[in-house]
């Protein structure tokens, strides 16, 4: 009890300095929260990807396309539980800036391949029945204010219709829930049958296949057997787990993310270094005070604990404050960068790690002064200052 009072009194001895130090530390941890969230954005999809899902892409480039007839041969392979396909529609809603993925899919198969997506069975049925029907994730419906029954025009950039027009009009028949924001889990979904019939060229070509395997531990073997099936055909494939595909895509942005992480890491350590220096300086000014405490009968250990306690309390409170501010800012930053870093999010693990580092920082910057305080001889301390 009395120690806490002492710590408190020590911190408020120089209000201005404590406040200034507090803010510097808070700023460092605010940056920590944001930079960890950026790093997390580069591993997005890797953590959430289904372990039992494989993605089959064209061997030489994902833009090439594969014949839909591959599907029957994939399904016939041992260990394959189910398989379906999707394609990249491109296009945009109202303005080129309104970017979200749009996939032509086979409705029932898509939702079977991604059981984590939740849709009302009646709406799924409506999706299967309506040729021009589409279903969208909740967040997309919220963003554009769409309701079931709305007509949604999409202007195509890759796929003009047979009659030469570029406007595809869809009817919204369902809204589904996606648990996370991983790639492909938040797509605008349309009927492949309608898409294939109405498009001008490349009939029977799809983008990629999604394969669920019965036993996830056999996924690598099954991936190899799929690629072997199409080897030396005119449409060779490259099969990888969903996590691997997500990682590869993140690596395409690669260098910039790495660079940002590096720069920000340097920033964090600079600020921490500065703060440590300031706190050590503050301690030196207070040596006579500590001598007085010892004169009053406080033990060596007690005095050093008070010094250490001050550093830890200041760092922990300031760190928690900085992390709190980053948690408040994160949603806004996430919205600003969502097109390029869709996975930007502040995870609770980041906050917990930040808090742990803050306490550790307090221990580190407090350790030397605490040790000095412990060894302090009253006479010397009082004489020197």
């Amino acid at each position, binding site marked *: 009890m009395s120690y806490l009072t002492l710590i408190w009194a020590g911190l408020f001895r120089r209000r201005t300095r404590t406040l200034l130090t507090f803010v510097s530390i808070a700023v460092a941890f605010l940056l920590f929260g944001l930079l960890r969230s950026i790093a997390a954005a580069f591993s997005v999809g890797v953590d959430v990807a289904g372990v039992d899902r494989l993605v089959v892409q064209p061997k030489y480039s994902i833009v090439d396309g594969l014949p839909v007839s591959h599907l029957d041969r994939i399904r016939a392979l041992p260990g394959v539980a189910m398989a379906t396909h999707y394609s990249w529609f491109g296009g945009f809603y109202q303005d080129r800036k309104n970017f979200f993925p749009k996939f032509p899919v086979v409705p029932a198969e898509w939702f079977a391949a991604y059981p984590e997506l939740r849709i009302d069975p009646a709406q799924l049925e409506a999706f299967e029945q309506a040729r021009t029907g589409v279903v969208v994730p909740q967040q997309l419906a919220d963003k554009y204010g769409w309701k079931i029954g709305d007509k949604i025009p999409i202007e195509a950039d890759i796929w003009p219709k047979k009659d030469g027009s570029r406007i595809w009009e869809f009817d919204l028949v369902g809204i589904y829930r996606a648990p996370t924001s991983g790639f492909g889990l938040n797509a605008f979904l349309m009927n492949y049958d309608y898409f294939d019939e109405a498009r001008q060229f490349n009939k029977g070509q799809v983008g990629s296949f999604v394969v669920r395997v019965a036993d996830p531990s056999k996924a690598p073997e099954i991936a190899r057997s799929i690629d072997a099936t199409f080897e030396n055909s005119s449409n060779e494939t490259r099969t990888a787990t969903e996590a691997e595909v997500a990682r590869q895509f993140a690596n*395409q942005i690669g260098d910039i993310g790495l660079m940002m992480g590096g720069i920000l890491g340097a920033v964090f350590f600079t600020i921490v270094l500065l703060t440590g220096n300031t706190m050590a300086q503050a301690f030196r000014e207070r040596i006579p005070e500590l001598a007085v405490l010892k004169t009053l009968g406080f033990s060596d250990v007690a005095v050093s604990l008070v010094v250490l306690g001050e550093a830890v309390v200041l760092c922990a409170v300031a760190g928690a404050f900085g992390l709190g501010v980053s948690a408040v800012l994160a949603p806004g930053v996430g919205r600003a960068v969502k*097109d*390029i870093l869709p996975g930007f999010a502040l995870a609770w693990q980041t906050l917990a790690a930040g808090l742990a580092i803050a306490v550790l920082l307090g221990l580190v910057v407090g350790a030397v002064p605490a040790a000095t305080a412990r060894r302090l001889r009253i006479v010397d301390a009082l004489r020197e200052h």
Partner: protein
Amino acid sequence: MHCGSTDLLNQIREITWMNLRNVPSRVGASSVIVVGIAGVVAVLVSILAMATGFRTALESTGSPNRAIVLRGGSGGELSSGVGQESADIVAQMDGVAAASDELYAIADVPKRSNGTPANLVVRGVEQNAFVVRPELHIVAGRNFEPGKGELIAGKRAVAEFTGIDLGANVRFRDSDWKVVGVFEANGDANESEVWADVKVLQAAFRRGNLISTMRLQLTDPAVLSTIAERIANDPRLDLQIRSEQDFYGDQSKQLTAIITGFGYLVGVIMAIGAIFAALNTMYSAVSARTVEIATLRAIGFGVAPVLVSVLIEALILALLGGALGAVLSYLVFNGMTISTLNRGAFSQVAFDFAVTPKLMTQGLTWAMALGFVGGLFPALRAARLPITVALRGE
């Protein structure tokens, strides 16, 4: 006491000089300001240099005398397709000095940096591609021979992608290719591509005689609008024409804006931290010199010289930090090449950090502003110290 302006300046000079001579004895505390501000400036300048480099690489690809023809509605070369008949009509229009038919394809090739496949642009071209882009020249090997499975590779494509080496064989889609030459093009986006004969590429990628886009050399930039009008009014054509500068400017806009915004966000947050560190240091400096300042005041030095001298000390330390940060950023990053996915083209583009004099000046301006704020309040406190209390104080 009467104080002439010469007196005032003399006083300021005296006190400032005395303060600065004291700095070495407070080196630990003073370095807090220098290091803190150096950090802010180095980070700000480096991130902005990344944005500047990216924009420069894309913008320098465009020339005011060139235009690109795409299919109506398509947002980039990848989603575009132009039929041979349409291409012939456009090539005959008035104001077109030369027309180059080009096929834009993507191949997955592992990056040297991390070994994962990334999108490399494979551009199929005919002789006119070199006519419309006079800035492009072969620096090693030779040009490809028409009709053969030969490639020439941009300098940056060689640097970024595994196996793209002069003399090497590369496999794309159904065919084998030999790299016979390396080209340069002022460091622009073309240098991140590999080029081959358009007819051979059409066959290998099974595109029939479809091309992706046309590049037009215009007789004058002003004819662009006339050609755009003729294309819009021709019922046989479903095409759009854009100036190259517009086209590449649009591609760089989004990423440039994001990196720049990010740079300022981090810069401002760090600046707040650095200001508080500077305030801390300068307040300590003032409080350590309480008696000294009061003595100066007692023997007749004015308020203004004391205030100005503290401010000057902060500004000099800040400028030192700013210069250190700017130079550090220049030494570490200027000219460093990195590559990223250019979303507009769905392909990798490599570019150099550009730590320009303008950015360095901007960094120094920030440093001065931080030093001013960090010095002002402690300076005011120093000026307001009541002489008697201060002298008795310690």
